[in-house]
């Protein structure tokens, strides 16, 4: 076979391998190293290096070098004039003595180094009118000068390497923006959470007796969701639903909410509007958690259909509303109200059990009691119940056996009940 054809086949194979290497998206470092080998090996070039251009620092950082010597700098500075001239010239394989190059500060500053290292060609890697890097090449093993055909091959290969570097730059930019977006999203979530908490505080301010009620309902709801094995997003959603479940009370007359005696039928009808009002307030807001308005609307529904506003039965009530209902009822029973003192913990647990399957979904009562049981027995490191109810309110020796009974499906008997039986 004539030598020219052999040479063509060897070079063409290198070009094909290089295209494959860039397209394969292997590790960037590996791609650059392989590409430099292919570039040097295609024409048996004794030495060379490939650098990536960082436009922020105006630096050329060498990613791969072959036979350039240990003392060759890993970074070279490139000025704006250099960059502009390179971009104007496009992707070319320039002889080091090319007149255009000699006018550039970059070449003037480093000419001695390049001559010392026997660099013969300088190839700015230009992709879409952007300088992405630079290749430096030494002489051929044959000692022949680079001819136009050699330079065309070198430019074709350099174009591939340039595309590889640009791809990497785009990926890095994409990653940076994705990271920025993630951070923004986290910030937004925090803002949303803070807003929700501020709203909860505003709701609770209307009623001096129920100060902190919404936050506690949120926390109890979260505890139930944790026991149900919900993921962190779902738990956050149910907590928000708890915080905002009483938002409709903002429109109810303060005298009704703070009435020291039982309210009359008219006032009760007015108060009972708050779930629908809450829904109307929350519905137009784009919540990250879709069920929040439904929790507000249906948190007074009971699974036996005796709740309000719509008297829905079990499966028609949104699950999140059932959770909030249980948390809300528990907090109502365990905090002082204008017209009555809070009930003892044992009494409340009995009530939960008795109303399981009537007001509350049985699996939610179990989940709630399990959460409390784990805290009381130390199985869980959480101290939510003690913190929210006060450390003297729950007496472990009385409450733990009752919770155990509930979890075993046995009707719990409190000491209070026994006292009354005696």
């Amino acid at each position: 076979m004539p030598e020219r054809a052999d040479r063509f086949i060897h070079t063409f194979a290198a070009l094909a391998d290089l295209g494959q290497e860039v397209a394969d998206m292997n590790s960037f470092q590996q791609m650059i190293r392989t590409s430099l080998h292919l570039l040097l090996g295609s024409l048996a070039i004794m030495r060379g290096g490939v650098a990536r251009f960082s436009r922020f620092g105006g630096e050329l950082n060498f990613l791969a070098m072959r036979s350039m010597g240990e003392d060759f700098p890993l970074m070279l500075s490139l000025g704006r004039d250099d960059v502009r001239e390179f971009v104007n010239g496009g992707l070319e394989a320039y002889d080091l003595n090319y007149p255009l190059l000699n006018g550039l500060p970059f070449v003037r500053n480093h000419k001695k180094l390049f001559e010392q290292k026997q660099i013969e060609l300088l190839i700015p890697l230009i992709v879409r009118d952007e300088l992405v890097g630079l290749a430096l090449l030494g002489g051929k093993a044959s000692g022949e000068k680079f001819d136009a055909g050699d330079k065309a091959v070198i430019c074709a290969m350099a174009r591939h390497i340039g595309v590889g570097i640009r791809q990497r730059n785009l990926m890095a930019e994409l990653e940076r923006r994705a990271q920025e977006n993630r951070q923004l999203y986290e910030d937004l979530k925090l803002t949303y959470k803070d807003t929700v908490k501020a709203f909860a505080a505003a709701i609770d301010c209307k009623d001096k007796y129920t100060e902190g009620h919404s936050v506690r309902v949120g926390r109890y709801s979260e505890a139930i969701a944790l026991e149900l094995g919900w993921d962190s997003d779902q738990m956050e959603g149910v907590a928000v639903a708890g915080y905002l479940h009483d938002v409709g009370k903002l429109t109810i007359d303060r005298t009704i909410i703070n009435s020291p005696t039982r309210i009359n039928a008219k006032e009760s009808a007015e108060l009972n509007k708050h779930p629908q009002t809450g829904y109307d307030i929350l519905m137009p807001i784009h919540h990250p958690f879709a069920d929040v308005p439904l929790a507000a609307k249906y948190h007074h529904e009971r699974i036996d259909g005796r709740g309000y506003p719509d008297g829905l039965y079990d499966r028609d009530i949104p699950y999140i509303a059932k959770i909030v209902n249980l948390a809300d009822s528990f907090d109502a029973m365990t905090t002082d109200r204008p017209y009555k003192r809070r009930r003892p913990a044992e009494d409340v647990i009995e009530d939960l059990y008795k109303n399981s399957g009537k007001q509350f979904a049985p699996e939610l009562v179990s989940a709630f009691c399990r959460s409390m049981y784990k805290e009381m027995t130390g199985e869980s490191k959480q101290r939510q119940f003690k913190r929210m109810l006060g450390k003297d309110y729950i007496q472990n020796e009385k409450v733990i056996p009752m919770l155990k009974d509930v979890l075993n499906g046995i009707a719990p008997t409190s000491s209070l009940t026994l006292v009354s039986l005696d």
Partner: protein
Amino acid sequence: MITENLLEVADQAPSQPDVSVVYATDYLNKLTGEKIERECKERLNGGCKTLVLNFRNTELVNSIGVSILLGVIDAASSAGAKVVFSDMNQNTIELFDMLGVTKHVELSEDN
């Protein structure tokens, strides 16, 4: 005695301690071929003055292989050592001739 190395690519001629034989193998044509180059450099650093690269198990040499061999030649030149290519097939000889690689090495039928 033949000293086996981790790569199983090299041995040392017992009667000539400054002569090392490195088997090129087909690894030469991939990035992993840099191991062969490192092995050669170690031999050169160890005082080897004649580095024999044996191509007995090398079917063909691609551009990566050529680049790695040029790296070996450069390292040998810096160390003042001689590089000998042996057991090359006709295709490899023609390729190295065409590219001018053979100007920098001695050729031998075998090691």
